[in-house]
């Protein structure tokens, strides 16, 4: 039900205008759902459900035990309350922890066994045509020259991965890119060695829950010296109602390798909030580099704060080797609640961590996001650029930690957090923690909060732009530094998303 429906149309205003405004106010474009037959595990979480999920994925015993011990731990810890977000209590027993399309009951041996409805879903989401052909299992699709740059996609639909593209081509380069359930089956040694080594099962409330019930996710292994021939991408879609999505991503960049990874997410519009608690672990060995880019566009709820995704995510990269490098770039426009702190542990000497973030909160959205840069190795460097934009009645918080340990000599951090407020009902907050335990390191932190500059707006409007366009332009300028850090295709999408997210926030 749109709030606009209740508004009485004044005389002299034609229906077309009303419809146009209506169109704008419901700006979330991915709010439709796919009617597809689903298979659910019973609601709630307990050891039986954990076993069931493990069973469904044909997991070996060590994996089931790993999950069970995480679950035992989860039962003993309490939900954190320190973030500046407020939401009704989550009933963890009123959620489906496992949902998969019926057609996926038996894992398709090849992509042409995939339900066409699923593929249609991804087509609707605008996943490049080339990949659709592959997801649809078109004979010889792998050999069709890709339009522009190639991106390999792992698509996750509710609890399961429905298909991964370009696997063969990646295999030639030695890169393993598959769903995590497949990895547990085919590469147990790698999974055993690395899973939980960056985000241990006991890490925090949501990560622990994820460790117990994660149903699928993506797995990447880039062998020593290999530059991954194309960008890898995961596309997450929550479709089923009352479902929690718990995916787990594990990326390992071995010595001297390079990979760029993109992540996108959407969900249908619903008036009941849904939970998403993911864990991403990245291991970066000597001289390796990982770029991780996210465009998070989960359903944010309506303008009254009804529905939307509760996004509680733990993302962490461990720069284990010397001269390793990781770069997090995120554009956070969706979710009713965001609780997310992609972090870097700079363990290797001369390792580098970067964090570029745009967080937009409009209407009743609440975002508490930021990063942790933990400097352990000598001569490590980190850079944080965070741009928070609040509009409507939204609350947007940057929360971050920069920690220079005593042994992290000659290290360097630069942090810049800027907040922009649009309207006088929203809030922008900055909560940085700075811990410096040696004197050869330099730490600089800067933060500003301001509103959209009237002069800039006036200038744009003078040139014939309407107010909304003008604000979008100014905001895009404000975000420029972060947008530039995104891979090309994502930057375009993000820029458009920034404008859409702020629709209806002016005037």
């Amino acid at each position, binding site marked *: 039900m749109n709030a606009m429906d209740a508004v009485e149309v004044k005389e002299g205003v034609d229906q077309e205008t009303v419809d146009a405004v209506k169109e704008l106010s419901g700006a979330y474009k991915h709010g439709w759902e796919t009617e597809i037959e689903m298979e659910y595990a019973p609601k709630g979480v307990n050891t039986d459900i954990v076993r069931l999920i493990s069973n469904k994925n044909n997991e070996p015993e060590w994996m089931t035990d790993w999950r069970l011990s995480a679950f035992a731990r989860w039962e003993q810890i309490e939900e954190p309350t*320190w973030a500046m977000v407020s939401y009704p209590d989550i009933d963890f027993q009123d959620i489906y922890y496992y949902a998969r399309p019926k057609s996926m009951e038996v894992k398709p041996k090849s992509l042409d066994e995939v339900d066409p409805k699923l593929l249609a879903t991804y087509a609707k989401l605008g996943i490049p045509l080339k990949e659709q052909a592959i997801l649809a299992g078109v004979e010889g699709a792998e050999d069709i020259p890709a339009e522009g740059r190639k991106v390999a996609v792992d698509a996750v639909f509710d609890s399961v991965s429905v298909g991964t593209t370009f696997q063969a081509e990646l295999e030639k380069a030695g890169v393993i890119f598959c769903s995590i359930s497949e990895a547990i089956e085919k590469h147990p040694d790698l999974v055993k060695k690395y899973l939980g080594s960056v985000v241990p099962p006991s890490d925090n409330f949501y990560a622990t829950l994820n460790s117990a019930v994660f149903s699928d996710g993506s797995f990447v292994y880039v062998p020593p010296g290999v530059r991954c021939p194309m960008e890898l991408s995961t596309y997450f879609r929550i479709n089923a109602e009352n479902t929690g999505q718990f995916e787990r991503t594990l990326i390992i960049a071995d010595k001297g390798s390079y990979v760029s990874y993109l992540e996108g997410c959407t969900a249908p519009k619903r008036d009941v909030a849904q939970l998403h608690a993911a864990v991403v672990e990245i291991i970066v060995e000597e001289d390796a580099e990982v770029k991780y880019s996210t465009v998070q566009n989960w359903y944010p709820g309506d303008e009254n704060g009804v529905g939307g995704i509760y996004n509680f995510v733990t993302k962490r990269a461990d720069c284990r080797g010397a001269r390793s490098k990781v770069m997090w770039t995120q554009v956070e426009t969706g979710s009713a609640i965001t609780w997310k702190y992609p972090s870097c542990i700079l363990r290797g000497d001369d390792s580098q961590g970067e964090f570029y973030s745009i967080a937009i909160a409009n209407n009743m959205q609440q975002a508490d996001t930021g990063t942790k840069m933990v400097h352990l190795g000598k001569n490590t460097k980190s850079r944080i650029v965070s741009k928070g934009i609040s509009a409507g009645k939204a609350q947007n918080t940057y929360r971050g930690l920069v920690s220079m340990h*005593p042994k992290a*000599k000659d290290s360097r951090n630069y942090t810049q957090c800027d*907040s922009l*407020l*649009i*309207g*006088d*009902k*929203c*809030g*922008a*907050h*900055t*909560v*940085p*923690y*700075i*811990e*410096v*335990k*040696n*004197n*050869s*390191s*330099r*730490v*600089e*932190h*800067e*933060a*500003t*909060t*301001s*509103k959209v500059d009237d002069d800039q707006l006036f200038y744009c409007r003078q040139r014939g732009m309407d107010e909304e366009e003008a604000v979008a332009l100014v905001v895009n300028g404000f975000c420029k530094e972060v947008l530039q850090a995104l891979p090309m295709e994502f930057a375009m999408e993000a820029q458009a998303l920034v404008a859409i997210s702020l629709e209806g926030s002016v005037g």
Partner: protein
Amino acid sequence: MALAKLKADVTEARLARLAMPDGAGWANAARADALARLQAMGLPSKRDEYWKYTDPTSLNAPDAPEAALFHSDESPLFDAVDRVRIVFVDGVFDADASDDLSAEGVEIERLADAMAADIHWVKDVYGVLEARGQTPVNRPFAAMNTAFASDGVVIRATAKVSKPINLIYLHQDVASDAILHNVVKVEAGAEVTLLETGPAAARFSKQLEVEVADGGTFHHVRAQGRDHERRAVTHCFARIGAGSTFKSFTLTFNGVLTRNDCIIEIVGDEAVAHVAGACVGDGRDFHHDDTVFITHDAVNCESRQVFKKVLRNGATGVFQGKILVKAGAQKTDGYQISQSLLLDDDSQFLAKPELEIYADDVACSHGSTSGAIDEEALFYLRSRGLPEKDAQSLLTLAFVAEALEEIEDEALADDLRDRLEGWLARHT
């Protein structure tokens, strides 16, 4: 649950050693309310977010840890300034050592006398500002102070006060445990300067509540004494009205543990609040924590927080600063800077500079830096023939200067600068 029980036990053990002074009905009620507040929140533990960087254990202990007396040949601070001296020895008012409690434009009384009067203006301030400052963050030591403060003064400025009032806190007993509470009310258009000097006690809990009416001006300059082993937990709660000015500066040398909380609420338009501090610490047994919380609840106001810390030989400096701009507090200009100069590799600086903003037409910023002395600057000075030690002192002094500049009175600033120079000369 176990944690809550532990907290309750610690609180109970500490309270067992304290006695609540008796006064007029309203005064006893104010103290009882404060005790109830304290019991509801309990004394802090290191698990509390607000005590993340400072361990309150020694402040919680039933007995004050002993602190050796420190003797110095230097002349008392601000000796050359004409002022009203009010002396406390180990937290107890010393009438003989003090001047007459009078000056033009001001009324000064002992806290106990004010609290015994049936009708007194202090009723509207004592414990009132402290209670307001208990949200959104609990400050248990402040509530404890309100409940159990055994001495102090109440000061009411009715015009521009002719000379500064200097509270001098002497420390003479190695195991003294003092709780002092001072209240200042600056009436509309009045102006007063309050000086606080000295270590006071082995363990010192001190609170200052300041109400500044419209157009009033309050200057506060404090030097926390040089005793190496002393511990202090101090609070300043201020509420300032339209067009008023509040300026506070604190210089801290030495001290095992110093925690200074400053909580300012700006309730009138076009008011100005500045809080600044400099601390110089030498040695692993130096821990200094500045915690500031400024609330903007009016339009067109300005606030500044300027904190500089010079740390060496394993000293620890903490800064937790916050600017809260409430909805409707438009045209706020908020500025906050916290910087540390780490003179060696053992020292540490822990900071949490926060902004919480609910109004859009504001300009708020904060900055925080930490690092060593600039090698190039050092080289430059040495190439001009300055010995390394002098060059380092000069650069350190320059680093601290921005905070000292917050003191308006030149004479007071000069005296503090001289002491600082002396300290640096002895400690480099």
